[in-house]
């Protein structure tokens, strides 16, 4: 039997903290989520009972640690329905996953005069690596603009593909506007034009059931452990076996080596080829625990719960005079970006904190979006499965209080 979402809150010890004499209302989940006790315990147990370096050890602890590390890989592979566990590469996070592809795929497949398309909705981590790759390779960096509603238009994208397009990089959910991008339309379109697609799933994999990489037919799928209730310092790059076999290594040393002499070096098979150095076994184990935790819920219920909370949040925010909610996408997930007329986002953030409400303010590493909207930043409230209507009420109450305070 799946666990009910309403029980989730009690699993997160930090949520009973008090901040500035108020109970913590944590609405900064797009930056990082909190961790359930099960994940915290998994880290402790790993270090108390198992800890060892992996792969090349023959002693009992080394074998246990290796088993746990590879089991975590298998869990993640099942979580996103990868065809093979070896298509799951452990990285430090989304940023490293994308940089790995930019360096390695870029090295092999991007040449002077080629083109790469990224959307204007991207986090800097899925924008700058491509910008820099294009600069380095003399390729053309093309940006797919978003519409007035904060969406991507597949028709506009269609017109951008050329014979020279080598990759399309975009997110599944925008961390700044919450737009859910129509990958089910966009990926087939790209493939019809012979263009592989990298999906930045940093803001989607913890919220949407649509993370089946085979159903999506994503070529690359990147996400971070710390945004999906897992530990920091661990992330995932999923890549189709087809690409992993063709891509050169990213970093060198440790487990990714096959043979070495001073005149010749050969490399191991994927995934090891892309995992140089001692891996973050603790992180992988913690991420595995987070996957188990997420799977303890019914995913349909989870999606429906988060959706209804978001809708409630939108309603409550829209009821506040002078408040602008940014973006108006057909489908939105977990992100509530806004400003109140005459109040700087930074001031709003600082003053909300005085009543225990944690939001993020500023550009959210999406300067191109802010520039397009001609604003210097937003206040962003972002939801996770442990949030509830009381959190939204605390937010809107806090906003009203700030308005009263600043607008006399």
């Amino acid at each position, binding site marked *: 039997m799946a666990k009910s979402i309403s029980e989730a809150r009690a699993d997160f010890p930090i949520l009973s903290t008090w901040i500035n004499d108020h109970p913590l209302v944590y609405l900064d989940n797009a930056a990082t989520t909190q961790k359930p006790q099960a994940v915290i315990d998994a880290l402790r147990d790993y270090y108390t009972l198992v800890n060892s370096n992996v792969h090349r050890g023959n002693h009992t602890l080394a074998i246990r640690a290796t088993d746990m590390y590879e089991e975590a890989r298998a869990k993640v592979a099942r979580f996103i329905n990868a065809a093979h566990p070896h298509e799951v590469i452990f990285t430090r996070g989304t940023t490293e996953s994308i940089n790995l592809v930019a360096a390695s795929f870029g090295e092999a497949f991007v040449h002077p005069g080629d083109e790469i398309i990224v959307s204007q909705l991207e986090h800097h981590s899925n924008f700058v690596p491509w910008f820099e790759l294009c600069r380095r390779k003399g390729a053309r960096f093309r940006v797919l603009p978003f519409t007035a509603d904060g969406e991507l238009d597949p028709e506009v994208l269609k017109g951008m593909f050329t014979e020279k397009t080598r990759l399309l990089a975009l997110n599944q959910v925008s961390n700044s506007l919450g737009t859910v991008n129509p990958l089910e339309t966009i990926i087939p379109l790209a493939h019809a034009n012979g263009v592989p697609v990298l999906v930045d799933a940093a803001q989607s994999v913890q919220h949407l059931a649509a993370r089946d990489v085979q159903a999506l037919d994503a070529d690359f799928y990147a996400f971070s452990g710390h945004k999906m209730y897992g530990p920091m310092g661990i992330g995932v790059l999923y890549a189709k076996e087809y690409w992993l076999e063709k891509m050169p290594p990213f970093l060198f040393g440790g487990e990714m080596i096959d043979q070495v002499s001073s005149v010749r070096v050969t490399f191991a098979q994927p995934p090891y080829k892309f995992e140089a150095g001692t891996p973050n076994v603790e992180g992988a184990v913690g991420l595995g625990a987070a996957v188990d935790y997420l799977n303890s819920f019914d995913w349909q219920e989870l999606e429906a719960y988060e959706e209804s909370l978001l809708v409630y949040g939108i309603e409550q925010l829209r009821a506040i005079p002078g408040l602008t909610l940014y973006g108006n996408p057909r489908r939105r997930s977990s992100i509530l970006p806004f400003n109140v007329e005459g109040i700087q986002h930074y001031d709003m953030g600082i003053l909300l904190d005085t009543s225990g409400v944690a939001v993020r303010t500023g550009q959210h590493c999406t300067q191109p979006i802010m520039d397009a909207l001609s604003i210097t930043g937003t206040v962003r409230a972002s939801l996770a499965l442990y949030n509830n209507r009381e959190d939204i009420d605390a937010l809107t109450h806090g906003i009203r209080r700030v308005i009263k305070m*600043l607008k006399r």
Partner: protein
Amino acid sequence: MRTTAEIAAQISEEFSLLESWEEKYDYLIEKGQNLPEMPAELKSEEHRVKGCQSSVWFATECREGRLYFQTDSDSLIVKGLAALLFELLNGQPAEAYATVDLSLFDTLGFWRHLSSQRSNGLTAMVSFLKSAAEECAARMGG
């Protein structure tokens, strides 16, 4: 002219009379609103303090070994802090900037919000002013 230590003591006392966070922020914001207005043409990139999440500008002037400045911000809170710096330092001898005691901000409770973040807030503002003051002092010396 009063010394920065005297001014700091007075500001500290003013704030100590306020009880809640709200009152303190209120008062801080009021300080900002009482700042002399900074002409729009001075709010240039060159006068902007880099690294602040909100924009804050300082236009400095060195006269007879003393540093004077105008300041503004799009954030009311940052503007309030800038106003405290203004009260504390505007027109002080350039040397006073180097040795100014900022523990005042600790007692106000704002410091943590504004100083800890890398190159954000108060630290960035103060070091902007300090380097202007250094130049000013150097001009006197040379």
